[in-house]
């Protein structure tokens, strides 16, 4: 291409881009929902304690996570917020996990103490799963140091079973984690991401000016392998990290998402690494994984660069069953949106989809796909916030606190950032980290929980204004794991279909509710619902009414849940 062609193409491209942009703007649909900040009204009084005292220790900038879980089994989503703590020798306050029980009236009660979670630890992330299949969700808290596994007694309390389960004496800088039945034996196994080999006593001095200490980048530390613990089904776990093929000491992992890249019913794992290539572990159906990140195109950016991967999520965006992967990255690296292009092949389509440019100046952490406006298309939510509280002095267009992204799916492969449209409170700048969604008020739409670093957690209630409805499913496995994690639910309506994978983890340090939500617009019925259980069983239900939540018990059919 000569210069004239290039200039002509550029001018044409700019002109066409301008026209298309204007046209897209003109045709953009009005957002049919709002996020209302109900944190105070709901009674959430949580503030994250990073322990920062001036020592500029690496973990201070990264925490922490949150989860929606129904810990008491009443069908109402409760909230668990992970907290850090003051560093040894710099004790100022006592800060613990916080468990908020849903009062079923839009408010929550602090049940931390009564639940036995009034524990100080330097927590990072959370993964919720009923690993002992007793019908009550258990909780893993990832920590800087020793991770903690809490078994739900079913009586509103948790018991620390870290030691008895065999997870003790494993100290690391753990981050995101998820429960996955990777061998489909009916028991949830545990995958834990570890960031770098870090300990307060070995902290590295990093500085911009050679005098004042500053937070180090991960290059200053050695990587740490992720862990995979196999659930023995007897209350104990076996470390199968080495034998399963996920062992990799070069990884600096922050986010993990479960997905099924080849629709073989066997869960695969995508791991977002910071300054290292992302990893895609393909389940070889024999208890082992094969890492195919580079070959699949998921490891790097389009220009072959290993980015600072933070959070990740995967979902079927086009009804094909093939998951799209979203990865949040550092500012100036853009959110990665990897669309499937072939068998186990992906391409970063963020720029084309309208997500790349919009996320160029934000540093993303938590991210999740959710149909926020219940129009039948999955949207993408991203929690943003920089790690450097002085970044504004260095880069004028990047702030420490940053507004979240709400990329609303336009239905044509592109997205439009509609955060501002979703509400002034929602679009405020936050130093966002964790992000989870769940229907805490059981009105059928997905509310949002956002944690901030060294700041409060915020609960945003989703208010639909267009009258769209959803259909929700809570899966209960019998032969499969009790939570049905790894099951695929597919609904068919009007010649199109949507699918959801029941999953733990995803986002960043956080976990969304386990029930799956489908937006169906203003439909009254869905034609068919097909559930593929991890056990291999397939069930089909027909003529289910929309605007309701259903409980699907493996092998026993579906029942509408009480409103």
């Amino acid at each position, binding site marked *: 291409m000569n210069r004239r062609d290039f200039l002509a193409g550029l001018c044409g491209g700019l002109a066409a881009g301008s026209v298309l942009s204007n046209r897209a703007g003109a045709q953009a649909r009005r957002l049919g929902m709002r996020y209302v900040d109900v944190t105070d009204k709901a009674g959430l009084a949580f503030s994250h304690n990073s322990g920062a005292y001036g020592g500029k220790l690496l973990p201070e900038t990264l925490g922490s996570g949150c989860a929606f879980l129904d810990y008491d089994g009443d069908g109402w989503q409760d909230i668990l917020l992970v907290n850090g703590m003051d560093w040894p020798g710099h004790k100022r306050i006592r800060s613990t996990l916080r468990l908020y029980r849903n009062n079923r009236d839009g408010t929550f009660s602090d049940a931390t103490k009564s639940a036995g979670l009034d524990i100080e630890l330097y927590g990072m992330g959370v993964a919720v799963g009923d690993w002992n299949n007793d019908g009550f969700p258990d909780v893993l808290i990832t920590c800087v140091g020793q991770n903690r596994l809490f078994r739900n007694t079913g009586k509103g309390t948790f018991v620390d079973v870290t030691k008895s389960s065999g997870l003790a004496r494993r100290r690391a800088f753990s981050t995101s984690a998820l429960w996955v039945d990777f061998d489909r034996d009916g028991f949830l196994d545990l995958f834990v991401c570890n960031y770098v*080999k870090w300990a307060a006593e070995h902290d590295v001095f990093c500085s911009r000016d050679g005098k004042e200490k500053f937070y180090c980048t991960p290059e200053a530390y050695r990587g740490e392998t992720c862990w995979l613990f196999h659930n023995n089904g007897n209350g104990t776990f076996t*470390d199968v*990290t080495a*034998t399963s*093929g996920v062992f*990799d*000491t*070069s990884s600096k992992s922050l986010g993990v998402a479960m997905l099924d890249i080849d629709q073989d019913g066997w869960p695969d794992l995508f791991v977002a690494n910071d300054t290292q290539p992302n990893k895609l572990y393909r389940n070889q159906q024999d208890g082992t994984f094969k*890492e195919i990140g*580079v070959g699949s195109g998921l490891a790097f950016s389009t220009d072959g660069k290993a980015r600072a991967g933070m959070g990740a999520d995967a979902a079927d965006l086009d009804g094909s069953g093939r998951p799209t992967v979203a990865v949040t990255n550092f500012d100036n690296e853009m959110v990665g949106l990897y669309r499937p292009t072939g068998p186990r092949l992906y391409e970063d389509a963020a720029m084309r989809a309208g997500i790349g440019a919009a996320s160029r100046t934000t540093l993303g952490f938590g991210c999740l796909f959710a149909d926020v406006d219940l129009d039948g298309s999955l949207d993408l939510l991203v929690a943003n916030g920089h790690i450097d509280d002085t970044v504004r002095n260095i880069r004028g267009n990047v702030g420490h606190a940053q507004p979240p992204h709400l990329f609303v799916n336009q239905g044509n492969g592109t997205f439009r950032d509609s955060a501002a449209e979703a509400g002034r409170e929602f679009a405020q700048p936050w130093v966002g980290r964790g992000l989870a969604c769940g229907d805490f008020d059981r009105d059928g739409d997905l509310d949002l929980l956002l944690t901030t670093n060294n700041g409060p957690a915020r609960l945003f209630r989703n208010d639909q204004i267009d009258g769209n409805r959803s259909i929700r499913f809570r899966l209960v496995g019998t032969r499969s794991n009790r939570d049905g994690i790894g099951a695929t639910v597919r609904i068919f309506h009007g010649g199109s279909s949507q699918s959801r994978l029941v999953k733990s983890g995803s986002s960043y340090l956080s976990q969304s509710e386990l029930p799956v939500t489908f937006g169906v617009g203003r439909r009254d019925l869905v034609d068919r619902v097909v559930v593929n259980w991890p056990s291999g069983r397939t069930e089909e239900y027909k003529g289910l009414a929309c605007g309701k939540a259903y409980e699907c018990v493996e092998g026993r059919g579906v029942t509408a849940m009480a409103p």
Partner: protein
Amino acid sequence: MSPEAAFTSTARGDRPRVSFRTGEAQYIDERKGVDHRRGCSHDATILEVVIRRSGRRSSPTTGLLIGLVITLAAVVADAWYMTRQISGLQALQTDLAERNRQDSLQLLRIQNDLNLLALAMRDMLDSDEPYPLTAWSAQLERIRVDLDDALRREAEVAVASRTPEQRQYLGDSLAQFWSAMDRMFALARDGREDEARAQIRLSLQARQAGISTMVARLLVENNEAEEDTARRVQAIYDQVQRQVYRFVTATLTTILLTSLYVIHSNRKIFAELATLSEDRRELAQQLIATREATLREISRELHDELGQVLTAIGSMVGRAGRQLPVGSPLQADLLEIREIAQVTLDKVRGLSQTLHPSALEEAGLEATIDWYLSTVKRQTGVAVSYERSGAPRPVDTAVGIHVYRVLQESLSNVARHAGVDRAWVRLRFAPARLELEIEDHGKGIDVESPRRGLGIVGMRERASLLGGAIAFSRPDEGGTLVRLTLPLDDGAVKDDEGQHSAPAPVKHAG
């Protein structure tokens, strides 16, 4: 003017005079005499000079063509040269720079893999991991796969300077490394982890370091090759830049020389055109002067000679008739002869006045115009309204004859072409100029038409001859308005006149 009319030009001062008839040119030097047989005097020199000048004038086309050819040749030569240089540059960039870049990328990939190997081996030697050495096998296998792929791609794009020995050494070294690695893992699988770690420390790390050093050396070589290529590319750029300067200089010089030549040629052409125009003007004015002189001569001859003869004949016939008996046939014949002579005499006098109004010399321009206008109705059928204004001033005959001729030509045009039988004549004496307007409301004329008659040309020449101006326009009512404006300086006014007071405007209709 008839094509048979003779054109005579009088040069200023003592310049020779030339004349020619249509279809033939004859050159007669005034100093050698006047050829009365041809009916005019001649001055050959001007035309001779013009013709000679025309014959000598060289066309600039040849020079321009030469300049164009030189310029085109320079462009073609430069384009050829540029194409060659760009081809060379392309070849350099494709064959050397691009290949070198791709090779370096693969070497960097290999180096990165080797670094990952080093880090993995470091971790394997550390005892802080609770995993057996075999845990690293998958991680190392991934590195191995990537390393093999990088090596294969590197071999495809390896620069030409890479020796077979170097290629062989790299491949062999890596093969030996992986063989040692396999042995190490075999030991680890056998539970001999200490021996395996010793293998890492003693063998694998050293091999990795050696391979890494070699890859680093290859990268340095590539870097040097890149620098060499960059120098060659820069040399080509410099050469092209010099060539561009040379080309621009040559082109500008050619353009400058051509422009100078064109300017020079144009100046010559314009000078010759100016001379030709002046010559033409002189010829035209001389023609007019000659025509007037000829007409005056003929008029005088008619009036003085033939008129006298006819007058004498009339007198003599009258005297003879009176001597014959009244009523005799002979007397009747003589009386008839006398009447014929008288009629002829009147006609001769009229013709004489038409050819050259003697009234101009005798009574001046105003009287001549009065007389002429009184004859127009009778001669042409056109009724003329005449208006005179301003203080009349005596006009020199040499000027007045031209004013008269313009009036005569204009009214003749009205009679012949306008298709109307009415015209208006206005004579205005301004302090320093004389204005004559002849207006009709007929068909009008197109003075810009290339087929316009010689009459208009003649009127213009007369105006120009007197330093005045003549304009042809269309009145609002249609038709033609001829406006002649002449400066009235001392030369145009008779010396013994000028005592006129400003009379009231005179109007009369013919």
